[in-house]
């Protein structure tokens, strides 16, 4: 029977990556010196499973490597070896190598053998040092060989201990197996058999004298008795032609097969059929996107699926109720029809919500990388930093999980590098030696909030301003609020670290961070206090498939403006509008000049009701840090809309981010605010406008 083992590979890789995560987080939580045995055990178990699986599925290099890790963990688990910080670090680095090996294998690629070898050497070094492993010496069974080396077979004396059958081992099975190797003659020794009155049916009383002829190796015989070597007295001696067999001489002719055949291993008779056959309990976990390319899949908590199935059931019931009513409709049933329709609406909405839930993953998928990151970086920088995470179970859209990782890493690195001070500096400032970085995630008003907070030195307002002036980002006499100064760090090419470190890079990041967050439909703000710390607050939409929109009308058309980008809506008066050279039409909103975007012109709507500014409304929106006023006929209402991709159904159109279908079945286009602002041809941000004005 040949079985294609490749079919199990994906599951093996999935569970191995999960195992690596368990190992990594376990190692990070491990306290050198006083490690929790259960914790070491769970790390060991993960390594053990990877080793077992990789061996079975033929990935011997992975099995070999994991074996060394497992040995080290085993010694730690048994208390034979101290858990040292060094050992933990080597194990962590080994987890990385193992991850690379698994990733490479899953992609049919090769991992650098030198790297594996070097890491293995590191592990061996740790293993060689310190309390040595207690070698379990295998009892060396001295094997007598025939002098003439012309051995003809084996003489075996097999005396099972009375309890042998209670391990599920049937002596007869072993004898039959021996018989399959060669010509076997069997003599049974009934000497220890008790009289029936004292006879214990579950015990074994017989012993056997066996002669096995043929070209058979000792290993083959050892293999057969491998499981029972402790449950019997066994002697295996070679039969040599010249001499008589050393053990018991077979005087009597071999008896027929033992009459006293004890029926061993009674199969449990009462088999209650139809017992519950629960399939393997898939823990309701969700898997991060497969590391090795391929289709993006999602593992969903089974309860979410159950809710959905339940909902479909309800929907079917409602549907059949309505269709029954439709067959012979009578006007007297109008009340029931209304009820039915209301029910249908409720179920549809609930179903929509639960389908959306399927895309939601706990943010822990993103957060889980931070303990390691903080551990590694703080060690490298010689800082003492504690990472506190809350709200890891907060659920976010899968796309957000995939895209928010890099910006968060950047922000956390910044906090570690620029925020938290060196221990001595902290003590001097009257702070605890150990700095704290907090990562919080929570829901607030239809948004997901992610906070990165540190108790470091805070942003240095003066230093930031000085740099900005030096780099010509703001005029030297600019008067800026604290908030505006903090915003400067999001400007491209802005870095205040005196020396560029390999930790937070070269200041190319913060503008990218903001852009990534904006692309997700989110925003970021900064709060900071000198000497006390800073916090970065990221606000993201709950899901990317549904958008909170403001519907606006322009002529007979309806458009959707994402609610997050709207600041306010105003009616403009003549005296607020100015024509600026090269900047087109602008209006003055409090101390700010903002460009006016006449949507009906850009979008080519001919039947717009409001052609003059005072006839319509200006919706003040912000995108990518710039603001503008969108000129529309009227505001209609706010509603959640399901985003349909234009690219997938038609093609990309600048100024539009998608489309949706409204309640009456008509199509409404969703405006791409940053795109519109760019289209308005205004390169200067509202912010620098503000500066120019103050200057």
């Amino acid at each position, binding site marked *: *029977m*040949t*079985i294609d*083992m490749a*079919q*199990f*590979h994906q*599951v093996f890789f*999935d*569970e191995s990556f999960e195992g690596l995560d368990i190992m990594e987080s376990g190692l990070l939580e491990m306290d050198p010196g006083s490690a929790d045995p259960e914790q070491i055990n*769970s790390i*060991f*178990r993960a390594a*053990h*499973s990877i*080793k*077992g*699986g990789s*061996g*079975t*599925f*033929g990935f011997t290099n992975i*099995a070999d490597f994991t*074996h060394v890790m*497992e*040995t080290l963990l*085993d010694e730690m688990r048994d208390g034979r070896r101290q858990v040292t910080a060094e050992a933990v670090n080597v194990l962590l680095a080994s987890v990385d190598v193992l991850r690379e090996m698994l990733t490479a294998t899953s992609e049919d690629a090769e991992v650098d053998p030198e790297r594996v070898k070097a890491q293995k050497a590191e592990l061996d070094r740790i293993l060689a040092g310190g309390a040595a492993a207690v070698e*379990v010496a*295998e009892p060396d069974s001295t094997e007598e060989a025939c002098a003439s080396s012309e051995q003809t077979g084996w003489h075996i004396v097999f005396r099972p201990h009375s309890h042998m059958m*209670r*391990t*599920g*081992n*049937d002596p007869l*099975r072993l004898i039959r*197996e021996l018989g399959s190797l060669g010509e076997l003659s069997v003599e049974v020794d009934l000497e220890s058999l008790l009289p029936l009155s004292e006879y214990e049916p*579950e015990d074994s009383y017989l012993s056997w004298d066996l002669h096995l002829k043929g070209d058979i190796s000792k290993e083959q015989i050892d293999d057969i008795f*491998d*499981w*029972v070597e*402790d*449950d019997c007295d066994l002697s295996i001696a070679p039969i040599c032609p010249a001499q008589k067999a050393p053990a018991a001489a077979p005087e009597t002719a071999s008896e027929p097969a033992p009459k006293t055949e004890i029926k*061993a*291993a*009674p*199969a*449990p*008779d*009462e*088999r*209650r*059929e139809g*017992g*519950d*056959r*629960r*399939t*393997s*309990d*898939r823990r309701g976990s969700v898997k991060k996107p497969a590391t090795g390319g391929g289709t993006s899949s999602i593992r969903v908590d089974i309860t979410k699926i159950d809710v959905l199935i339940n909902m479909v059931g309800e929907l079917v019931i409602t549907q059949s109720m309505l269709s029954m009513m439709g067959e012979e409709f009578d006007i007297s049933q109008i009340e029931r029809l209304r009820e039915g329709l209301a029910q249908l609406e409720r179920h549809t909405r609930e179903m929509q919500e639960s389908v959306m839930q399927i895309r939601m993953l706990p943010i822990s998928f993103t957060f889980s990388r931070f303990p390691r990151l903080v551990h590694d970086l703080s060690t490298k920088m010689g800082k003492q930093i504690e990472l506190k995470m809350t709200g890891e179970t907060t659920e976010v859209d899968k796309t957000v999980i995939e895209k928010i990782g890099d910006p968060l890493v950047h922000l956390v690195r910044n906090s570690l590098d620029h925020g938290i001070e060196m221990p001595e500096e902290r003590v001097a400032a009257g702070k605890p030696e150990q700095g704290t970085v907090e990562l919080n995630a929570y829901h607030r008003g239809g948004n997901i909030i992610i906070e990165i907070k540190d108790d470091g030195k805070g942003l240095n307002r003066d230093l930031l301003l000085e740099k900005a002036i030096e780099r010509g980002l703001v005029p030297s006499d600019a008067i800026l609020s604290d908030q505006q100064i903090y915003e400067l760090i999001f400007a491209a090419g802005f870095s205040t670290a005196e020396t560029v470190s390999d930790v937070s890079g070269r200041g190319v990041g913060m503008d990218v961070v903001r852009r990534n967050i904006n692309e997700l439909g989110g925003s970021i703000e900064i709060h900071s206090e000198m000497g006390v710390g800073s916090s970065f607050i990221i606000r993201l939409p709950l899901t990317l498939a549904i958008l909170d929109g403001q519907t606006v009308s322009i002529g007979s058309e309806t458009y959707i403006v994402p609610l997050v980008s709207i600041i306010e809506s105003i009616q403009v008066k003549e005296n607020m509008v100015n024509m600026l050279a090269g900047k087109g039409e602008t209006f003055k909103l409090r101390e700010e000049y903002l460009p006016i975007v006449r949507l009906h012109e850009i979008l080519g709507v001919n039947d717009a009701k409001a052609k003059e500014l005072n006839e319509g409304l200006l919706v003040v929106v912000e995108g990518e840090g710039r603001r503008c006023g969108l000129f529309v006929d009227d505001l209609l209402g706010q509603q959640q809309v399901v985003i349909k991709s234009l690219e997938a159904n038609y093609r990309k159109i600048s100024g539009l981010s998608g489309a949706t279908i409204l309640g009456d079945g008509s199509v409404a286009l969703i405006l791409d605010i940053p795109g519109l602002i760019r289209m308005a041809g205004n390169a200067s941000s509202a912010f620098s406008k503000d500066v120019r004005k103050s200057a």
Partner: protein
Amino acid sequence: MASILAVDDSASMLQMVAFTLKGAGYDVVEATDGQYALDIAKTRGVDLVITDVNMPRMDGITLIGELRKLPSYKFTPLLMLTTESSPEKKQQGRAAGATGWIVKPFNPDQLLNTVKKVLG
């Protein structure tokens, strides 16, 4: 056909074992840890148990010990899946009442041969 209870917390190993045995016509019941396996074993009889050793909740050796205490499992073959590196595990398993072991790594043919041998 004989029924076999396969126990392993590793989904890939469990799938491989179950697939192999089902392919050979055995009735296979799967469990992902010792406690779960024990619950199943109590509610229905099986002719053979093949269990991994290292598992959360209840390990394979404890499972074997618990099963042996049940009258209906007194003589049932109980096999453990173990790795070469742990002779002491074999010892512990034997003390708990294990019939024998299948050493990892193994291939489907080795597994089937052992099962056939044990089930006769």
